[in-house]
């Protein structure tokens, strides 16, 4: 749960996050206007090659496309029907390449490395006087509390089923929100008791 990261060491894991993100941005800009079938086919081949180079666990990640399958098929069919096979392939191929390349970065970069890049991208905000440490604090709170809220949700769901609740799961949403808000009051008190959210860069 929580992260797409593949814990292994490949050539892509060794590349710095900034370079990977820069390459992705360049690839996105370059591929957007492409209409030639052979360029798209080459890009698809290169992308699949990248996944293959990550080993079996890399190729297994291609299943992430499964939830998109029907929508992709509908788009392809509509495009084929109105514009022809070449256009349909260009559209589908470009979409696949951009999704898979972006996903490859998430697979091979730890969240803390990504966070370093993110904090760097916030530099202009810092010039404007935004206290970006507070954003970093909020991010770590969020990551910390996802498992807590998921366990609240499971407890409510189990209680709901134990009472003979059917599939009307939505009955648990109001209590879940109430629990979340109550907990956020308690966490805020704890934060205040520890001197508040750090404001200056040294923290």
């Amino acid at each position: 749960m929580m992260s797409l990261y593949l814990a292994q060491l490949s050539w892509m894991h060794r590349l710095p996050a900034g370079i990977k993100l820069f390459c992705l941005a360049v690839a996105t800009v370059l591929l957007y206007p492409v209409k030639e079938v052979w360029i798209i086919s080459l890009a698809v081949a290169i992308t699949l090659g990248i996944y293959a180079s990550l080993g079996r666990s890399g190729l297994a990640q291609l299943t992430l496309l499964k939830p998109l399958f029907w929508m992709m098929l509908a788009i392809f069919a509509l495009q084929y029907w109105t514009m022809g096979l070449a256009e349909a392939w260009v559209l589908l191929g470009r979409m696949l390449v951009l999704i898979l390349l972006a996903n490859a970065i998430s697979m091979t970069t730890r969240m803390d490395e990504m966070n370093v890049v993110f904090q760097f991208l916030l530099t202009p905000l810092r010039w404007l006087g935004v206290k970006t440490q507070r954003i970093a604090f909020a991010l770590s709170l969020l990551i910390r509390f996802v498992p807590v809220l998921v366990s609240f949700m499971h407890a409510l769901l189990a209680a709901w089923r134990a009472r003979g609740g059917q599939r009307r799961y939505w009955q648990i949403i109001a209590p879940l929100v109430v629990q979340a808000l109550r907990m956020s009051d308690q966490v805020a008190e704890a934060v205040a008791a520890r001197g508040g959210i750090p404001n200056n860069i040294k923290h």
Partner: protein
Amino acid sequence: MSDITKDKQIVQIAIFAALLAALGFIPPIPFATGVPISAQSLGVMLAGTILGARNGALSMILFLVVVALGANLLAGGRGGLGVFAGPTAGFLFAFPFAAFTAGLLTRTLSSQFSLTIAAGIGAFVGGIIVMYLFGIAGFKMVTGRTWLESLMIMWVYIPGDAVKVVLAAAVTGAVARALPSSFTNK
């Protein structure tokens, strides 16, 4: 505004973003149109109606940042940078705007209507109109279809979202009754 109040808001923003993630883990409910409905987009409406326009939108931005950093917290276990390139990316970019609209309308209308009605209108305009405007615009951009064709592919999701509007209104009312002191968006 005192520092303690500001800190409290940041905590609330972060925890509501975590709540949005938890809602994505609720098993999807199969719906009449054959498309299962997930509780996550209900969370977007609730962020607005409960936290208010500004904090609701900030909470959604925080959630999207964590997804972009590589967390697979979207409903169905999706996440990472790839989702921002897919045909449904427009819906993701809509989250903050949808929450903002829902929050603003809830607050403005709650002086004339009951909170539940105001939240229902807010959730409808934010969670359906704004959401689909962005969603379809993004779909158009990725796939090059026309507005009408894009809407044709998406319509299956709309009935489920309409159900969520009703739920968002009911939940907002219930939360305001349960926690009158924490409920600031009125």
